[in-house]
């Protein structure tokens, strides 16, 4: 009985986090982006500084008609948003937030699971692009596929470096063997992982798959209403997952200068929030890369850097052991 209750509580907590954190990130993006551009952002919805703007947006999306284009592959078209969104929920369940098993579901091959499932999330965009029967959607879908191919590799290599350092694939296990000097040691890997994750989420400056000035809205061009909202939610859920994962793998998750016992979860959230702010900051600051620049960055910069990190990790590991 208590086991069942335990599972229900854990799943509920993960689900609530999955629904709330992306909205918090989205609202932060509204306000931070506005102020970085000298604007105010939403000010009316909800009364106080537009805190309910995204709730209002959700209501608006829910009221809209759900259109499937005549030539579209109906089944795939309708399934795509779910494929885009659900993997992030699954990943969130495997990310430890605090010490002593404060995780939705502890997995021995957690790192492997997380990276594999995050890759599935991108499939949603490819499905949407293929099924829409629209040339812009198809272009967006193909760009997504190219981006996924290019950036999955440096991301995996960087994550592999951490797994090598810790000697385990379990996320809580990695954190258990974490020391503060891992941060400078794995710094290159952290940057590669974060940048590659950013590209995989198709966030600016890596948003060629949805480049609105070139291909309307890429794979999401034909979507309306709730399904479109699900794609947007997937983007913000992806931010939460990427930031949480980066903080767990490279910044020591629940480890902090003090309060490691009771306030570990707070450290994880704080690091995640800082990284999310960084993502928003990068989006506001940098223009979109060109498609060829994007590929060049992945193959000529990030992958060599990731390999350097792996070599460095190996050398240090051999020397210290």
């Amino acid at each position, binding site marked *: 009985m208590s086991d069942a209750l335990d599972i229900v509580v854990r799943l509920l907590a993960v689900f609530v986090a999955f629904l709330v954190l992306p909205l918090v990130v989205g609202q932060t993006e509204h306000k931070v982006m506005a102020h970085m551009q000298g604007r*105010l952002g939403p000010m009316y919805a909800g009364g106080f500084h537009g805190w309910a703007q995204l709730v209002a947006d959700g209501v608006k999306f829910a009221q809209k008609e759900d259109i499937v284009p005549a030539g579209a592959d109906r089944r795939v078209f309708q399934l795509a948003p779910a494929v885009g969104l659900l993997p992030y929920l699954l990943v969130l369940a495997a990310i430890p937030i605090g010490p002593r098993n404060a995780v939705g579901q502890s997995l021995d091959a957690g790192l492997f699971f997380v990276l594999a499932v995050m890759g599935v999330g991108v499939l949603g965009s490819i499905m949407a692009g293929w099924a829409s029967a629209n040339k812009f959607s198809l272009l967006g879908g193909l760009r997504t596929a190219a981006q996924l191919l290019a950036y999955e590799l440096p991301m995996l290599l960087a994550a592999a470096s951490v797994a090598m350092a810790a000697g385990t694939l379990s996320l809580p296990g990695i954190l258990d063997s974490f020391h503060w000097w891992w941060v400078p040691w794995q710094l290159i890997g952290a940057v590669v992982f974060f940048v590659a994750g950013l590209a995989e989420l198709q966030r600016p400056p890596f948003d060629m798959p949805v480049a609105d000035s070139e291909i309307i809205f890429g794979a999401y061009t034909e979507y309306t209403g709730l399904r479109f909202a699900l794609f947007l939610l997937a983007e913000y859920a992806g931010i939460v997952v990427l930031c949480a994962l980066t903080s767990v793998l490279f910044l020591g998750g629940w480890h902090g200068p003090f309060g490691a016992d009771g306030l570990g979860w707070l450290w994880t959230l704080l690091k995640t929030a800082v990284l999310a702010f960084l993502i928003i*900051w990068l989006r506001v600051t940098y223009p979109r890369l060109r498609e060829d620049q994007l590929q060049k960055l992945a193959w000529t910069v990030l992958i060599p850097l990731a390999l350097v990190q792996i070599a460095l990790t190996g050398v240090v590991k051999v020397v210290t052991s």
Partner: protein
Amino acid sequence: MAADKKSKPSGFPGSGLAKGLAVTLRTMTKRSVTAQYPDVQPDLAPRTRGVIGLFEENCTVCMLCARECPDWCIYIDSHKETVPPAAPGGRERSRNVLDRFAIDFSLCMYCGICIEVCPFDALFWSPEFEYAETDIRELTHERDKLREWMWTVPEPPALDPAAEEPKEIAAARKTADKLAAQQAAADAENSGEDA
């Protein structure tokens, strides 16, 4: 990447990227420039062209404004009245009386030519701008409404400290000084007789 190569050769690789981040972060700490209009009234310049007010006491129905208006949006009706002679045996004078003065603000393009051209200072700019209507016909403001706008016309901006006196004030002062001098002379004469 390419942008780095084009920037100054002394620049550290990626310094341009860092500069970009600094710009956005600095902007975030500054006050935003958004005007919160319905909540906060805008701070308008003194010579804002909001609406045109009619000081009908000054209007002589010379029709210059209506004729010069590029949009033909000023409507004036008038009739003549005869005024009895000022002195007995004199000639009767005729005088224009204003019956209707209306400006159609749905046609007006706010060029201000009517105000420039008015020789009797009967038309003025007012900064009021909140007179939107749901019916376009309501935008034709008749003379009573145009007269009401006069109360919102701001004082003319102050002259520069070293500026010349306005001509009409100078003329008025001259006359007043002359009158005062005459008065003083008369008083002196009277007191001299008394003594």
